[in-house]
Structure formats: structure tokens, C-alpha cells
């Protein structure tokens, strides 16, 4: 995110520790290898950022206030306090410590954050956590049964459907969704319907093979 230009020359006094010493919890540090810490003198408004958050939490009209939500992730209910801005992706990664779902772009352009919501593949970076309540969320961590890999996972292993592995959780969740949608009737259909998952390492040919293999196996298993 870029800082904004200003044409006016009004901000001439720009040494923060002078102008903001009375502000809460703002640390300033000038060049010093030995890292001597100067904590701005806390005044009457010295509430730490954590304390401030708690105060806000009790005021439901404040936009920054934390909301109590319950997410059902991989069959388990998880209670969280998040502000309205938090995405399902960041809720899962940063608050639930489930780092399997990856952030590739945070703007819905790469598919790395794909999870299943009520069985459908969606982008968790464009889903607000508060809007995921009451739904079944499935992440990569919820796919295997203990040590037994899901057929899609197993197929990705044998077909080497990845290299660096960063897009892989998203590819696999998307593949599960794609197979569920019935969009695996040909190689070209798989390619098109998996194009929402970018792979910069270029493992696409193997990804297609893996999905074909898994889809065949799962169809066989079902009948």
C-alpha cells in the first residue's frame, strides 16, 4: 500500500518523537546500533493497543470493534473474536494457526487460498470471516483421514502434481471441488476449470494427470 502524496508543505516538523510524545504507545528509535529503546512518554492516553482493543470490543457501534464469531472448520467449532475486516483466510491462518491455506495475492487472482465452503470451492481471501459463519468450511488440513490421504492428495503425490508446493493446498481443494462439480470429463475441461489456480512452477501437465486419476478412482469408489 502506498503512502499518499501531498503537495502542501505544511508538515515541516516531522520528527515524530517531538510531535507525538503524548500519543499512546508509540515507540520512536533513532539510529543506534546498540538499540537503546525510547518509549514515548505515556500520558493520560497511554492505553496499550491491546487494552484499546478490549475497550472497543465492548462497544458494538464502533467499526473497529471485535465481533464474536463461530466458524465450523473441518467439522470443529471454533470461537473467535475478529474485526469485520478479517478475511476467512487470515482468520484461519493467523487466528486458528492453520497455515495450510496459503495467501498468494490476497486479491482473488491466484487461487492459492481456495477452500471449500458448504462443499463448494471458493476463495477465502475474498470471503469475510463474519460471512463464513453457519457454513461448513473445509481446508487442506481437513481432507486426509488421519494418515490416509484423500484420493486427490494421493494422486498429486504419485503424479508429482507440484514443485514448490505453495499453490498445492489450493490446487487440491479446487480439484476436490472441480471433481464434485463434474468438470473433469476431458483434459481440456480439467484445464479450463482449474485455471483459477495459478502454478508458477508450471506443474500443470502433472496436475491435470493427477485430477484425471483421482476423478476416475473416486467415480470407481462411489459406484
Amino acid at each position, binding site marked *: 500500500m*502506498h*503512502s499518499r*502524496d*501531498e503537495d*502542501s*508543505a505544511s*508538515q*515541516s*516538523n*516531522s*520528527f515524530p*518523537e517531538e510531535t*507525538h510524545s503524548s*500519543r499512546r504507545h508509540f*515507540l*520512536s*528509535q*533513532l*539510529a543506534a*546500533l546498540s*538499540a537503546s*529503546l525510547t518509549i514515548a512518554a505515556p500520558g493520560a492516553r497511554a492505553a496499550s*493497543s491491546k487494552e484499546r*482493543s478490549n475497550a472497543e470490543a465492548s462497544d458494538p457501534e464502533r467499526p*473497529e470493534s471485535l465481533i464474536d464469531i463461530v466458524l465450523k472448520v473441518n467439522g470443529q467449532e471454533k470461537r473467535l473474536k475478529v*474485526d469485520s475486516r*478479517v478475511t476467512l483466510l487470515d482468520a484461519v491462518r493467523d487466528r486458528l494457526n492453520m*497455515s495450510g491455506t*496459503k495467501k*498468494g495475492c*490476497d*486479491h482473488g*487472482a*491466484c487461487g492459492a487460498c481456495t477452500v471449500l465452503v458448504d462443499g463448494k470451492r471458493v476463495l477465502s481471501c475474498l470471503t469475510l470471516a463474519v460471512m463464513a459463519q453457519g457454513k461448513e468450511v473445509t*481446508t*487442506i*488440513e481437513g481432507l*486426509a483421514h488421519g494418515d490416509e*490421504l484423500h484420493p486427490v*492428495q494421493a494422486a498429486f*503425490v504419485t503424479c*508429482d502434481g*507440484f*514443485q*514448490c*508446493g*505453495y499453490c*498445492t*493446498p489450493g490446487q487440491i481443494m479446487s480439484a476436490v471441488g472441480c471433481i464434485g462439480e463434474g468438470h473433469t470429463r476431458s483434459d481440456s475441461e*480439467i*484445464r*479450463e476449470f482449474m*485455471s483459477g489456480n*495459478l*502454478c*508458477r*512452477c*508450471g506443474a*500443470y*501437465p502433472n496436475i491435470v494427470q493427477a485430477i484425471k486419476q483421482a476423478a476416475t478412482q473416486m467415480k470407481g469408489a462411489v459406484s
Partner: protein
Amino acid sequence: MNTAFQGLNRDRFDAKLKVTGRAKYTGDHDLANMAFGYLIQSSISRGQIRSFDLSAAQESSGVIAIFTPFNSLKLYHPLGREEGGASGEVIPLLQDTQVHYFGQTIGLIVADSFEQARDAAALIKVNYEPKAAVVTLESGMAKAYQPQSVDQQPPTWSILESGASSIDDILRQAEASIAQEYTNPIEHHNPMEPHATVAVWQEDRLTIYDATQGVRGQQRTLAAVLGIDDDQVRVICPFVGGAFGCKGSMWMHSPLTAAAARVLNRPVKTILTREQMYTTTGHRPALLQKIELGATRDGVLRAVKHEVFSSTAATKEFIEAAAHRTSRYLYKSPNILVSHHLVPLDIAPGTFMRAPGEAPGMYALESAMDELAVKLGIDPIELRIKNHAEIYPGKNVPFSSKHLLECYQRGAEKFGWAKRIPEPGMTKDGDWLIGQGMATALYPAHRAGASAKVRLQADGYVTVSSATEDLGTGMYTVLAIVGAQSLDLPYERVRAVLGDSALPPAPGAGGSQSTASVGPAVVVAADLAKKKLIEVAAKDQKSPFQGAKPEELSYISGEIRGNGKSLSFNQLLGVLGRSAIEATGSSAPGDEEHKYGFSSFGAQFCEVKVHALTSEIRVNRFSSVMDVGTVVSEKTARNQIMGGIVFGIGMALLEGTQYDARTGWIANRNIAEYLVATNADVPAIDVEFLNRPDLQFNSIGARGIGEIGITGTPAAIANAVYHATGRRVRQLPIRPEHLLA
């Protein structure tokens, strides 16, 4: 090893971790009391920062600290490469108020959560004094200059046959000649994993999780910039989510995050946004390449002249050596001239990007060769064969192991080249024009000193470790296979460990050098471990072999045998009450470097279709035959070559960073409008390896494979587009508007 090294075809070592989401990348690390860092970047290209207005940002909830040049974190000047430094920038950031390029990092904000840091950063106002900036190759040409050297060669390097006064003379007199210009835009690596750093201090010791291609280089570079000693820094990075060169240098978010963590006395995690990566972690420079080829009317080259103008940041030289790394040695010609000029621009520093130099250089050279073939009415493969170099031009040494002719022949066969109608625009499929093209693939073989440890354990497993990296390149698998083959054990008994600067030193994972550098070190370590095992077996009081002479004992497939007894190594360790026996081995290039030319080669074939009306270009099929030495890990190697080809499809048809010429602002600073290949863009790709060991290069016979896949791809595609349409496009990416009737 007694017999020639054999590669294996095995599932990737780290496969299970990756498919279950358990592989931890840098940004996945969660530490107690961790704060979140977020970069603040300039919105002007050049000038001075007058001031920051931080008032609104400071009021924003969760903000802990805002560091700017006025409230700075002390960073020192990075070490140069000759001192083992690996910094992408030369100027330590935040130490003054100068802005050198659009998107330069000018601050770091730290907050309790990512959302709070991001949102407070948006509230920061910066007051600039802007200056005019020069940001495109065309506008910067007037200031072009030659660097001091290129790959330790003069910036203009030439060989001239005796009696020739100049290469231009030869070109003028040639029976047939080609003189063309080719251009490449700036490209960005766009690995799926954004750069990230998690820094935590314990007193004056820093542990840093950092997305890097080289933990050792990162350790050294970080230490110097932070003003501490190497051994106060430990860099950990077991998984890299793609790099392609952009994680091969230290970028400033790493030391800034570490410095913030030190000052704040709590762990700090900074993850770059996709947008921020476009101006903070390097790019492939833009190029203008001029190629002139002179030949006899039978197609024998008389002269190859390749001049390159590449962009560089005004603050830091980076040379994309397109001519020195290609035309200088690929084809046999009595007269060769390669030259390089740099065009300084007010943009962020460039860096290595997959096959730096080779990728754009081969696009130009292999396009020019195709143009020559067309002009002479000679088959493109024939033309290459006629000019095949057995001896490394200039160096006058033989190539150690070069089977390029076989690549052409085998590749042509598999692709069905003989069925191709040579005339362009004659092959159709409904409304689609079909074209077939080919190009040579080329990548030098690099190797550096490395060490590895082999540890035979009481639990029956063997651990092979080295401070190398796996970027998706398959290095875990290579370590496990080399370890297994060196010890004649099943692959499943070997554990590979890498990505920690505390491990035995290895070079950065770049230049396709990891297998060739670390593999032989593993072999040495395994030999030493076997010897040690036997020594211990012979000496230790509790050993059933005690008293035997070491020569009477042998190691066979995990067992010590001798004097009518045999015991597996883990059984022996059990009897001895020892947890392990280990040895560290090292390996380095020797004087073979002066006796041979070491390079990998390939032949790449492409069929495209171009819509006759609307001119979209799509790749129908692609075929590659590669001569890369011993293939250690078949499955991962194949994937790497395919990945290089996919990268090449992007380079040929899709990629290019768009700079507003007036301001240096980047229009497509995201992964929706910066176009990389999608699944639907990639057809079936056929890859064959000749698998001829290059034992002159190292004991395993392996050369690198990470980058060669891209090198012939753009030209093969461009040549196929010409064949489909009769239109020659000499700029990348090739787009529909270049082909509209």
C-alpha cells in the same frame, strides 16, 4: 562409488508434507507475542522525501511503531559479491530521504495484526520533492554505457579469423546475412509465495525465517547489514514457495524486519503483498538486442554479431548478459562478436530471473537463426547441425559431454518434423493457422564448493543434510536419492534435511548448480561415513567385529560384513550403544574447468495455432529432448523441464511489466493483469532425457536442469508463429495485435 551413478524415479521426498498443508513456508511461522510488519513505499520515481504525516496512522488501532528515514532503523552498507555478500540493493534503505525509484521502501510500520498494519499504512501521507525520472529503455538510451566486464570477460568480446579486419567487413561480404533487432520487456518472477521474513532475537542472536534461495548467503549478508557477526545469525528456510531468482539475494524487508524486532524486543513477521513485490524483489531487465549473422549460401556461419542493451537500476548494476551467455559459444563461427551496454534507469534494481541472459539471448539468437534458415531455404535443424560446435569457441577446449546432435535428431523424430510443410501459412485446421518451430536450448553447467553430512542412525534411517535449498526444484529428493545410491540403501531409508544456515555449507540454489555442487559432496560424505563405520566396527570393544583389520571388513547395502559375520549398521550402533555415526564431506570444482567447456543442451519443438481472424496464439503441443548429464531424480527433473517450458510460454506470449513512461508507475502490479500462464494455456508436453553422464563435470555426472527448459522455448514459439502466419514478430510478448491482418 564403484559403478556409474544411477538416478531413480521416486515420489518427491517432501510430497506428503506438501499435499497435506504441513510444509511450513516462511510466512506460516507463528511465534508468541509476534507483531506484524508492513512496508511503506514511495509513490514517486525520484526525488526527496520532505516529511511524513503520521498523525492518522499513529491513531490507528494496533499500531506499535512506524519507522521512516526520520525515525530510522540503522542498517549498514551491504557486502559486495566478492566478499560473499548477496544483496539485491546496494543502498541500505531508510538511511536517508532520497527516493531512487517508484515503489522504493521508505518505511516499515509494525502493528499487532496484519490488518491493522496494512490499514494504518494507508493512512500515512508523504510529502515529496519530486525530480524528473527516466524509466524506459528507449528514453534512457542516450546514457547507455559499457560495464567494466561481463562474466569476467570484456564487455565487447570478439574472435576474428586471421586476415579479417573487422566483423562488419565479414558481414558485408557474406553471401547471405541477417540483421535484426529483438526486444524483451521487463519481466517479474511472481513466485506463488510472496517474500516473507520472521525475525526473533534472543539477546544478540538472531533467528530469522526468511524466504531465500541461499541460507548461507543470506546469513552473511544480513549480518553485515545489521552490524553483527555472521555467527550471530541463523537463517532457516526449509521450504521456498518458488523463487526463479528473486529470492537469490537479500532484499531490504529482511534486515528491516530483523532490526525492528531487535528494537521492539518482540518477534516481527513481514509478508510482502503481491503489489509490493514488483518494486522490492527484483525483475528481469528489459533488452534491445541487435543480431547480425553472416553465412555462406550453404548455411555455414561466417560471422555472429550480437549486441545487447539492457536496462539497469541507476543505483545498482545488474547485467542480463544475453549475448555473452549465448552467441559467444553456441555455434561454430570463425568470427564472433558479443557486446553489452547498460542503460541506467530510475527503476528498482533488477536481478537474476530464470536463465538470466540465456533466456532473452536465446530468444534473439534462435529467432535470427530461423530467419537465416528461411532466407537460405534451408531446414532450421539442418542449419543448426551445419554450425554445430564441437570445440568451445574462444576457449578452444572440447565440450565435456555434448549430445546436441542427438537431441535434434531424436527430437525431430518424436515431434514428426519430417511431416512439416516448410512454407509458412500453408498448414491450417479450420480457422486456425498451424505452425511448427524449433530452437536449441542452452544452459551452462555451474558448480561450486559444497559440503554435506551423512549420518547413519541407530533407528535405521540415514540423514543427509546440507545448507542447500529446495525451491520446488526437488533438492530434498536429490539428496535422498544420492544418499540412498551412495549407500546402496532403499530411498525410503533416507531422510533429507536442508534450508538451515547451521548445516554444512552449500552454495545458493541458483545457476542450476545445486545437484552438481552438493551431490558429489554427499557421495564423499557417504564414503567417509562408510569408512568410519568400518573403523568403529573394527576398533570398538563392544563390536562383534572387534579385532578385525579394517581391510577385512566391507560395507554392503547397509551392512558391515567380514569374518563370517554381518550386521546392519543400525544393529551395530545398537550393540555399541551409539546413536549415530556421521561424516561430513566436501567437494569443489577442480582444474577440469580449464580443460573442458561444460554446458547442457537440448532441442525444443513447438506447434502453435494462430486464429486466422482474431489472431490469438495458442500452443498445441511441445516437445523437448534434453542433454543434461545424469538425471538423478527422474520424476522431479521431468517436472522441472516442463515448468521451464511453461515459464517460456509465459515469456513468449504473455509476460511483460507495464511502466507508465512518464512516471515509472507500474500498471499491472498484480497477478491478474501481469499475465502468467494458466492451466488452460499449457498443452501436453513431452520431455525426454538422453541421460548421458558427464563424468568430467563431477562424480555423479549431473549438470543442472532448473533453467534450461525456458531457454529454447520463446524462440521455438516465435518461430512456430512465423511458420503459421508468415509474420515475424521480433518483440516479446507476441500478441494478437502483432498478427492482425
